[in-house]
């Protein structure tokens, strides 16, 4: 379940950039040769995100050719 570690890295990165704001959506790219399973990653993400600023955030996964493993963008709740 290396997807757990990948999910942790995603949440860490999101929290770092969010700097206290709530994360609504995280868009990521997963290469089909990266040996990361999108389904397993989505499952792990929910678990890892639970206690973080990304709790309840939507994870948009784009499957790509090759070995990409990237966070494309974050959608953050705008400060009132």
């Amino acid at each position: 379940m290396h997807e757990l570690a990948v999910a942790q890295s995603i949440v860490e990165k999101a929290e770092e950039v969010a700097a206290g704001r709530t994360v609504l959506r995280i868009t990521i790219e997963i290469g089909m040769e990266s040996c990361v399973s999108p389904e397993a990653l989505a499952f792990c993400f929910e678990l890892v995100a639970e206690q973080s600023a990304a709790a309840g955030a939507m994870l948009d996964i784009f499957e790509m050719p090759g070995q990409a493993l990237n966070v494309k963008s974050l959608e953050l709740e705008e400060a009132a």
Partner: protein
Amino acid sequence: MCTHCGCGMPEGATIADLQSGAVAHEHLHEHDHKHHHPPDHDHAHPHVHTHSATVVELNARILEKNERLAARNRGWFEGREILAVNLMSAPGAGKTTLLERTIADLAGKFPLSVIEGDQASLRDGERIRACGAPVVQVNTGTGCHLDAEMIGRGLDRLKPPVGALLVIENVGNLVCPALFDLGERRRVAILSVTEGDDKPMKYPHMFRAADLLLVNKIDLLPHVDFDVARAEAAAREAAPHITILRVSAKTGEGLAGWYDWLAHERGAVHTAVLS
């Protein structure tokens, strides 16, 4: 094209760049790409967003932190002319037995240190210690692989001397360790003949990432249906430049080739530092 998600729909969003500061975003078009929702997230597809939000374009590698720590380890190794080898295989392929034999056979030739990775127990670390090599055991708990941070912490304790060979015995697993750079110079995969000759086909990531494949337990070939040529062909298909050696860590057969490979790689580390 929508630059938020590259989905080809008309532009519905204003995109903020990380350098220039975040800009409000309204994402109004529908998506049909893969969304993963928490179980309690029950809106229907296709959905429409009307909330005002800030979008930050990151374009960052997910495993960036691990890669950064791996690069630090790699620099540490290079500065000390240490050859670091990441040894990976399924559980029971003979990683620790190979190491025991290697430590005994190379005793006195050059310093050899070991970082042992397992989910639990000091068992392998104790086996290595009994052979006389300095060793640190990393227990990953539920973790299925070693990562660069664990290696960095291991090095703080182990401090292999200049010119040493450091063998990192990864957690027994043919999938997960392939994804995580530890800062090693070379990756060695072991495939034992009791596992089946189709493993390189079924787990291509591991073999693709390897510089050297050791086909181990060849003393058992008369007793198992393992077609060495088929396994080797499959490994070469995954990794065309892979070096393959047939060995038995138990009887010692073929290990001279392994030791030659190590000596050659150690020489290359020394040359790289001088050049």
